[in-house]
């Protein structure tokens, strides 16, 4: 198939599947809390609605930056789709996508001029604590498989079995990133309700639509990468079941835990990351991991 057509199809799938999964996430949280919750399709309708709403610009914004950042946010996750599901390229590109995403989150808050956005921007710097376990997880995948290439990691797993069974603590580190990025997460300090909607507070209409579009794609890409590098090779049904199961688990966790304060959030992430890091090192050097 033509590469551009493949990219377009994968982006549409990522957006729609990501939106439906986030809708399911909200539904699971509601059911755990004994509420009926919105329909699963609601997150998608909500995202589409923003594209047709009036776009207002607060007086305090740094305009070029404020507008540009939303398009960059959408663009970097489209790059994530290209590097992951389309090209099966290097994990380092996906790490780069995530790192840039953190920078964009940071700048999105600061460009608005709103105190809520600015405080969210400061917290985005703190929440970069999740990148350390992510990088460690990628390094362990490299140490075990000898490659960063997703296609080769899939080939390795088809011979030696899923990496989840050989380096489970690395999978836990990656899973912590997924929990962190899920809505209403205990680690979601940048979108704490104390900050209204955090770095998104002052983005309206079309710009907020692009942010929702990016969030949906981000959720799909992160679940895809997790399933691919720890449970691969999977077919479409395997991905569907895996994504639904992870969404259920994160929904359950988020429905039953309060949002941590920034200090507790960072310390919890670093502690879990450190335990998993040293655990995996011990497993590798004691010969448990071949």
């Amino acid at each position, binding site marked *: *198939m033509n590469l551009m057509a*493949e990219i377009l*199809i*994968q982006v*549409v*799938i990522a957006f*729609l*599947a990501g939106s*439906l999964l986030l809708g399911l996430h909200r539904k699971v949280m509601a059911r755990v809390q004994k509420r*009926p*919750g*919105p*329909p*699963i*399709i609601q997150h*998608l*309708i909500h995202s589409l609605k923003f594209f047709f709403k009036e776009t207002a610009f607060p007086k305090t914004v740094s305009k070029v930056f404020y507008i540009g950042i939303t398009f960059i946010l959408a663009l970097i996750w489209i790059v994530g789709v290209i590097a992951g599901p389309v090209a099966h390229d290097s994990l380092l590109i996906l790490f780069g996508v995530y790192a840039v995403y953190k920078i964009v989150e940071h700048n999105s808050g600061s460009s608005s001029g709103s105190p809520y956005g600015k405080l969210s921007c400061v917290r985005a710097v703190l929440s970069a604590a999740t990148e350390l376990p992510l990088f460690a997880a990628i390094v362990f995948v490299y140490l075990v498989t000898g490659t960063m290439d997703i296609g080769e990691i899939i080939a390795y797993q088809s011979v030696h079995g899923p990496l989840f069974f050989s380096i489970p603590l690395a999978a836990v580190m990656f899973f912590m990133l997924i929990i962190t990025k899920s809505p209403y997460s205990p680690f979601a300090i940048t979108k704490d309700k104390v900050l209204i909607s955090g770095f998104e507070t002052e983005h309206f209409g079309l710009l907020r639509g692009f942010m929702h579009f990016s969030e949906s794609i981000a959720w799909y890409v992160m679940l895809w990468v997790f399933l691919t590098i720890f449970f691969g090779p999977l077919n*479409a049904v395997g991905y569907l079941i895996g994504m639904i199961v992870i969404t259920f688990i994160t929904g359950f966790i988020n429905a039953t835990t309060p949002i941590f304060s920034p200090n507790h959030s960072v310390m919890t992430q670093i502690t879990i990351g450190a335990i998993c890091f040293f655990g995996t090192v011990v497993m590798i050097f004691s010969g448990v991991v071949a």
Partner: protein
Amino acid sequence: MLDYMIYIIAFVVGSIAGLVYSYKQHGEPFVDTSLNAVAAVVAVVGWVLAFNSGNVILSAIGFVLGGFIMGERPGYGRKETAMGLIIAIIVYLILKCYSMM
């Protein structure tokens, strides 16, 4: 991947149509929990077609029908969707066993 995109778009279209239709039918401030026979038949036909037809167009029609019932107003279409999914999975397993013999 084109077929998966068609399926997911079909499901989304069906869900939105189901939501709009359901709110027009049920505007009351409570949920009627009784089983809707017509919706159950639509759900069963939809999910069986979606999982077992082996044809992109028929599967897409199945996802529209399945999505229509699944996407109804919260509280409606749950039992019907569960029935449809269970019957579709049973039919899938029977066909799978039959093809292996």
